[in-house]
């Protein structure tokens, strides 16, 4: 098939950028990475990009296609080529470009290192020297976070990091959750304290680009939410973000609806809120600051309050409250209902032969 590509080249010596177009012949099964190889081998040996495993596990080939971070080895090009679209290929975002499609990953790894990305054992070694005995269910708390291949696709499009490059970012925070949720780790509270710092979890702006881009289903935003929930459960709630979140809980169980007007003082404290007075007055004039009295109370709000107390006593808040939904949400990602019987699968139209063993009458 014929494939067209427009590639943003970057000359490291001169700092010049240039959009170059290539037209190549590629086999039908070709991925974006295969196409780049053809460009490099046969058209322009100076093209630079990273690659290694070509099977979505090494995390080398993160780059942007039409502005969205992808693993080049995961992108089959057939449909795109058939549609006549010529995609624009460029380096990942939020990281300095070194050459063409190669970015400097150093800032990425610095953030990775900043979360103490290793187990800090919290148990005595098992007396028999063997493994810790832990249920799979308990380990599954960090199952998704353990899938991360450090490719940087989440970081590439992180809106908060774009606005503040100091933000710890989705990859490092997901890595942090990998240990916060690991029952073998003994530094959970210290980790959470640190992650509640200025550039920690509460700087996430919930744009969900990280979940959208992650090629491995890590869902970093969900990991950040788990860290927030676990912090709150442990009483680490001094950050304005935590106070903000807490006020929603208070609102829901008292009036049912958000008590908007009190949100600012409850989040920022009275002093900061007063500094915002002029801004608030401007808004008030437009009805954007609804009077807190009489409160706008939802009907049957008693139910919401009782529900709160009942659920709190069941002890499933913290990361467990988010993890409990992952099994169901994973079904969306798997795109599979899992309802067919084997007979139905074997009998599907166009199904491949049933397996059998020669000389044995019954099916295996």
């Amino acid at each position, binding site marked *: 098939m014929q494939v067209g590509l427009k590639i943003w080249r970057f000359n490291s010596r001169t700092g010049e950028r240039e959009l170059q177009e290539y037209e190549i012949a590629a086999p039908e099964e070709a991925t974006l990475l295969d196409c780049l190889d053809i460009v490099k081998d046969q058209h322009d040996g100076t093209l630079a990009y990273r690659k290694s495993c070509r099977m979505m596990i090494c995390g080398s080939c993160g780059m942007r296609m039409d502005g969205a971070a992808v693993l080049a080895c995961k992108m089959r090009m057939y449909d795109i080529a058939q549609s006549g679209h010529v995609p624009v290929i460029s380096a990942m975002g939020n990281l300095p470009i070194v050459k063409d499609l190669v970015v400097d990953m150093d800032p990425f790894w610095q953030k990775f290192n900043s979360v103490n990305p290793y187990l800090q054992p919290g148990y005595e070694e098992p007396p028999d020297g063997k493994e810790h005995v832990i249920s799979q269910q308990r380990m599954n708390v960090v199952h998704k976070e353990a899938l991360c291949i450090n490719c940087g696709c989440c970081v590439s499009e992180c809106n908060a990091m774009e606005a*503040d490059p100091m933000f710890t970012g989705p990859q490092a925070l997901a890595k942090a959750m990998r240990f916060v949720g690991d029952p073998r780790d003994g530094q959970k509270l210290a980790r959470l304290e640190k992650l509640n710092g200025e550039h920690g979890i509460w700087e996430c702006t919930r744009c969900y680009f990280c979940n959208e881009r992650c090629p491995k289903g890590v869902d970093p935003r969900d990991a950040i939410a788990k860290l927030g929930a676990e912090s709150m459960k442990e009483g680490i709630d001094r950050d304005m973000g935590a106070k903000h979140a807490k006020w929603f809980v208070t609102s829901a169980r008292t009036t049912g609806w958000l008590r908007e007007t009190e949100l600012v003082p409850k989040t920022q404290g009275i002093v900061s809120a007063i500094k915002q007075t002029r801004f608030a007055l401007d808004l008030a004039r437009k009805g954007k600051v609804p009077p807190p009295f009489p409160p706008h109370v939802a009907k049957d*709000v008693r139910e919401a309050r009782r529900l709160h107390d009942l659920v709190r006593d069941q002890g499933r808040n913290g990361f467990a409250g988010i993890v409990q939904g992952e099994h169901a949400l994973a079904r969306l990602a798997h795109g599979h209902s899992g309802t067919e019987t084997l007979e139905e699968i074997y009998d599907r139209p166009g199904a491949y032969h049933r397996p059998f063993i020669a000389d044995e009458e019954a099916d295996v």
Partner: protein
Amino acid sequence: MRKVAYYKGCLASLSAKELDSATQALAPKVGLELIELESVTCCGAGDIHEAEPDYYLHLNARILSYAAAEGVDTLLTVCNVCTLNLRQANFMLLGDTELRARVNENLVAVGVPAYEQDVDVRHLLWEIAEGEGYELLKGAAHKGLKGLKIAPFYGCQILRPSKIQGFEDPDRPWSLERIIQACGGEPVDYPAKIKCCGFPIIQAREETALSELIQPIEQAYEAGADAIVTPCPLCHLSLDAWQSKLKKSTGRDFNMPILHLSQLVGVAAGLTESELKFKRHVVSVKPVLEKLEA
């Protein structure tokens, strides 16, 4: 007329009453009969999900349950954040019978009906961007938006995560553009239309949030937009109310009017000021309306 349960959420009940008013007025024109839910609370706005996630799940299950109790199959939302929170909770319950049973047990224990009959959570945007709603919209938008250049601003949570939202390609959405065109307006394209407005951290990390907020406003401004339209009242609040803060940090005064989706379609459908309540906006919508009248 199709009956749907209507969940207006916090903002449309409070600081963004104009959204509720415009939506209520618009609904019959696009074939929707809204059954307003009364015994419902905040969805948690992502905050309760992060503070007390089990409570988040139960609060949303309660909303879903009261929607189902109305005997309808659709719960209509008018907010990105409500849509994501409700859809996420819904999928958690629909895909896990054990979890749903436990949640239902808790609901019943406090006097809420169990969530038995499944409902689908859908944003107004999706109802009028295709199908019958879209056909009716085309007919209703007789007054048109002629000559107006409108910048669609999707925000985040109506698009992402797409495995939960899934209505359209999160990188190349089309629904707002289609609606703007159906109303006779001219959609303006700009990269930040799918990015974050900064709202979730506008109090906790104002500086970071404002660096996000300026992008859509500046880009829409430079693309010559007369106004921005958004399907989310939280985006609306930051784009409209916090816009003045950009002046302080950048020295630039964009004066970019921000319309709720229901208002934009409402203008095209000839709804009145008493229904659209533009007076409640911080940035005046007057220039847009005047241009339209001219």
